[in-house]
């Protein structure tokens, strides 16, 4: 077999062998050190075999007063993190999925303008979860509302039921922008997941919040609303906030200040 290298290459002093030993040493060193590093990560993240806990309720505070006009960094960050095509680049804008969008409000009487991001509100009593015939639309113990990509039949009943127009159907085959940890698929419904892949990795925040903070607007705060010491809980205690369509009494995971 001509592909086989001559025996001399595997001699104790051959370059391949030296590289192999070098790599093996580095791997051994890594294996010794990584568990320590990993332990720090796991302290915040969640091992795959452990279920989400209802002791946590993930939530978001949107300070509409800080949300800048014309800025859509949160939308771009969401699109990049989760792999959906920005609507401006879509050939079918009315059919393109939008997990988060900037909403511009104006009071016709006073002319006052308000900016805010609108996305899945992660209701505690989610209408989309109630109406889903197969149970594909579900709420995780930690309050995140998700769609099971394997059991969604694309009936769109959840889209009829959502008071926030937060959900999109994937109308056409997806291109290669898909992310390995964000499963999507034609004919299925999807929406904001609170970047569940980041949360489960232990990032403790979402792409939109990171982008808003990086831009210096600080209009978004994410965290555990059940933890009285979390930043979001502290801010929610101080700021007057509202839930959109509070009349529906859905107990939302997203709270707005300045609306």
């Amino acid at each position, binding site marked *: 077999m001509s592909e086989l290298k001559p025996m001399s290459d595997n001699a104790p002093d051959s370059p391949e062998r030296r590289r192999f030993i070098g790599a093996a040493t580095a791997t051994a060193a890594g294996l010794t050190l990584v568990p320590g590093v990993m332990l720090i990560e796991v302290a915040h993240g969640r091992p795959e075999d452990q279920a989400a806990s209802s002791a946590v309720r993930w939530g978001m505070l949107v300070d509409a007063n800080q949300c800048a006009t014309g800025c859509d960094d949160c939308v771009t960050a969401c699109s990049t993190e989760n792999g959906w095509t920005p609507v401006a680049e879509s050939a079918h804008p009315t059919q393109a999925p939008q997990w988060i969008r900037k*909403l511009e409000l104006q009071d016709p009487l006073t002319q006052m303008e308000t900016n805010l991001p609108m996305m899945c509100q992660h209701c505690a009593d989610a*209408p989309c979860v109630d109406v889903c015939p197969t149970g594909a639309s579900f709420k995780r113990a930690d309050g995140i509302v998700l769609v099971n990509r394997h059991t969604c039949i694309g009936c769109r009943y959840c889209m009829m039921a959502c008071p926030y127009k937060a959900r999109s159907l994937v109308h056409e085959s997806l291109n290669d922008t898909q992310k390995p940890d964000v499963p999507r698929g034609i004919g299925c419904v999807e929406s904001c997941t609170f970047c569940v892949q980041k949360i489960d990795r232990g990032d403790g925040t979402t792409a939109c919040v990171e982008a808003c903070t990086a831009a210096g607007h600080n209009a978004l705060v994410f965290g555990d609303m059940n933890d009285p010491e979390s930043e979001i809980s502290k801010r929610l205690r101080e700021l007057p906030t509202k839930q959109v369509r509070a009349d529906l009494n859905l107990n939302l995971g997203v709270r707005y200040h300045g609306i």
Partner: protein
Amino acid sequence: MASITFREVDGSSPKYWMLFGFLGLFVLFGALAWNTMHHHGHVVTGMNNQIVWGLPHVFAVFLIVAASGALNLASIASVFNKPMYKPLAPLSAILSLALMLGGLLVLVLDLGRSDRLIVAMTHFNFMSMFTWNVFLYSGFFVLVGAYLWTMLDRSVKSYSKAAGTAAFIWRLTLTTGTGSLFGFLIARELYGTAMLAPMFIIMSFSYGLAIYLMVLTAAYAWTGRPLGDALMMRLKSLLAVFVAAVLYFVVVYHLTNLYFAKMESVEAFILRDGGIFTMLFWVGQIAIGSVLPLVILLTGLGRQRSWIMIACALIILGGIAQMYVTIIGAQAFPLDMFPGMLEKSSFFDGEVHHYSPSVPELFLGLGGVAIALLVTTFAVKVLRLLPASLDDATVAKLEH
């Protein structure tokens, strides 16, 4: 009670096979439409993330509602013990099954993942009205099928009343479920009301009977069997009552909405400013679907069979217009997340949503209609569903 002879339709004439072929062609078009939608995704439809249920749902819900109504005559015969209607019951049952089949096929073939139908049959969320409907539809086939069996097989004839009563209660529950698909939705102003369930029931009476009368008349005319006026006059009067009742429900529904300030803009949209929806409401649902048929059925015109047929056709067209306004009109009006504020976004918030049905959607819907009629056409050939004669003398004997 006089006995009635039921006989299969011969079904060997070129005319029969032409009808069969014509309907089959539309079933084929429907299959091709589904294949296109399934292959390319809903991108080839006029539906989008604003109008999520489109023309296929209009056809599907119309057929499902009409299916329940097509059972009217069988119910009157067995539950309310009117022997005059007994000869009409077998066709009533088969038409009802056929319409249900057509409607359900359109509904499931319009799913984003119609290949996952098995998931819908194996995963249930009992909080969902859709899940309840899955059971209501399945039960409907079982009960109406059993009822039909009791009508066709003398050995189980004694169970006919029990089966008929069960089917009657079931179909009322089923249409309550269909109306509640919309009635249980809180997000949209025009839904979220208990009114929709009884309104759908009365609509089912009207649409189902109109379809039944057209099928009955066509079957008797095309096979040369006698169909007397005595029966037609009774049925057209019954139809007029149903149409008037639908109109009553529609008026009360909109009047109630108009009384609430929060509903004013959505009512203004449907009744005045909604363009195609306003036109379909006033011209389609009210004028063509209700007022004209009432005028025809309640005046001297209603004594002529051709005019009764025109009234039935108008009721069916009006019914489709009603479903279009109910299903698509309600979605076209933007969600009011921030009452009193003007909203703008890249996701078309705050603006009226546009919808243009595509060719595949239309043919998928028509395919459902075609399959319902095809099943009926085939059933009357292979089963003894139609009395050999329904002339006045035969019908008169039944009353005594």
